[in-house]
């Protein structure tokens, strides 16, 4: 601090004199000086802006890159289960229908009583459909409330429709395969049997 403070501090720390009376007065002076010093410091703190954040009314500024609540873009999910398998605490459960581009995510649950916000799920995701957002106040009153369901709830018709779509795709694939097989056989017959 300023030079006045250091002078007072030096005064207070001065080596006691050998003369008892001198020491007596030096003691008194040290008491007054140190009291003055302390009082001066605290009154500057009194006029300082309090650091307390009035939390529910005033929210802290969250820095970018904060790892909070998950976010899932289920249209991009390929159901590769990499996040589920790489989670160190096994807090993610993924279920769904289909594979690759055409998927229907029926369940994407994160158990926040286990999650340690390590960001590995987001890092391993090949399509970057999982990320951690800046939402941080995740306290819950029960174990059930810690289970967060990220997949959009699907109605039975939707699931049935998607199953039908999958069956249709499967049928198309089978038809394509059958056609290819037929073409291959026709070609073989045309060219004759391969020489052994």
């Amino acid at each position, binding site marked *: 601090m300023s030079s006045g403070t250091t002078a007072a501090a030096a005064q207070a720390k001065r080596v006691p004199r050998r003369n008892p009376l001198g020491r007596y007065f030096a003691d008194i002076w040290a008491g007054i000086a140190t*009291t003055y010093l302390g009082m001066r*410091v605290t009154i500057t*703190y009194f006029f300082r*802006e*309090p650091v307390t954040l009035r939390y529910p009314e005033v929210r802290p500024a969250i820095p970018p890159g904060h790892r909070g609540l998950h976010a899932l873009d289920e249209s991009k999910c390929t159901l590769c289960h990499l996040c589920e398998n790489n989670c160190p605490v096994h807090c993610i459960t993924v279920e769904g229908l289909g594979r690759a581009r055409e998927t229907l995510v029926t369940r994407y649950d994160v158990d926040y009583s286990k999650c340690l916000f390590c960001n590995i799920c987001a890092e391993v995701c090949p399509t970057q459909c999982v990320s951690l957002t800046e939402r941080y106040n995740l306290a819950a009153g029960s174990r059930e409330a810690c289970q967060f369901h990220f997949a959009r709830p699907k109605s039975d018709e939707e699931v049935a429709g998607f199953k039908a779509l999958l069956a249709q795709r499967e049928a198309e694939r089978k038809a394509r395969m059958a056609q290819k097989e037929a073409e291959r056989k026709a070609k073989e017959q045309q060219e004759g049997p391969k020489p052994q």
Partner: protein
Amino acid sequence: MDEFIQHFHTTAVGALWPSLLSVPIWITFAVAYAVGAAIILAWMAVMALAWTYGERRIAGFIQVRLGPNRVGPQGILQPVADAVKLLAKEDTMPDVASRALFDVAPFLVFLGAMIPFAVLPFSERLVLTNMDLALYYILAFQAIEVIGILMAGWGPGSKWTLYGGMRLAAQMLSYEIPLGLCVLVIVLLAGSLNLGDIVRWQSHDAFGLHTPWIFGWAIFRSPAAFAAFVMFYVGGLAATKRAPFDLPEAESELVAGYHTEYSGLRFSFFFMSEYAAMYVICALAAVLFLGGWHGPIPRPTLPEDASLITLWGEAIRAGIPGAQSFLGKFALFFSSLIRTVLTPDGLRIVANEVIGAVNLLGKAFGLYFIMIWARWTLPRIRIDQVMYLCLKVLLPAGLVCVIWALVQVVIFP
């Protein structure tokens, strides 16, 4: 106050209801003083409530936090919530406690804190008893509080309370003497033990000169008085058991010291009396050393014998022929008070009193703030250091101040 009651009894009330004059005068006095005591109790409660909030808020700001701010706007209802909590708490007593001591202690402490208010002025005319021995009375009866705390220390049969009581006994032995010497300086200079006379002395001219504004205050009249003021304040910190002299209730060593075993209402008595005692010390310091109601705000000048009661009595007597019914008399009783206050003389008296009270309370609250400021700055000192400070530093310095004051009184009478 006695003359006022007498005056009021014979002129105002007696003129309206002559049958009341046959009532013995002591009943009038008893009623008047009961009302006064109720006002003092309310003032003590308000002081304690307001300053618990103030203390926590100031402590918060000193520690760069906010302090209580959730209950009510800016947290001002926090003390009410605390009071409700204290009242609703279970009143417990240890099995081994000595019942009589345990029961009486909080009330003795409270009594000790309440008694000084009987003579403590709020302004020139706002004083319950204008006693010639007021200063002596305050210093003498504050010791009741100490007895109460010793009882609270012994009564519950707990080692924490016992240590707290013992420390207080040692502390009391050390601070009472320098405190008395500091007061003696003012008594010598002012030549009176009456608090009103001491303040009036501080408004008069010093050394035959006209002293404008604040320069009539005792601390500007004599270096001895200034030193005595500082020492009185330090001794007052010890007397009110405030940091750095809070050994009797050192929470980090003795849980809560002498009131460890008390809960609920009994605890709140200790609590209230502590804050009331702080106010008494601060107000006393303001009256003795800082000019009392002669403050930085100038007051309108008044003739010496100006009295609102006299004016009120005259107004009542003037209105009597017009009011004969019971209700009419009541209406006259209150309307004449309002009419008296609204006359130029009445307004001047009221302004005089209000400004005086603002001056005195402002100074007392300033000193109160410094007490809190010191509490959140200074670490607690050891019991031997307390005794060293009081007996080996303040006592000789107090004696020097007394001698200086004697010489000053002899040389400049």
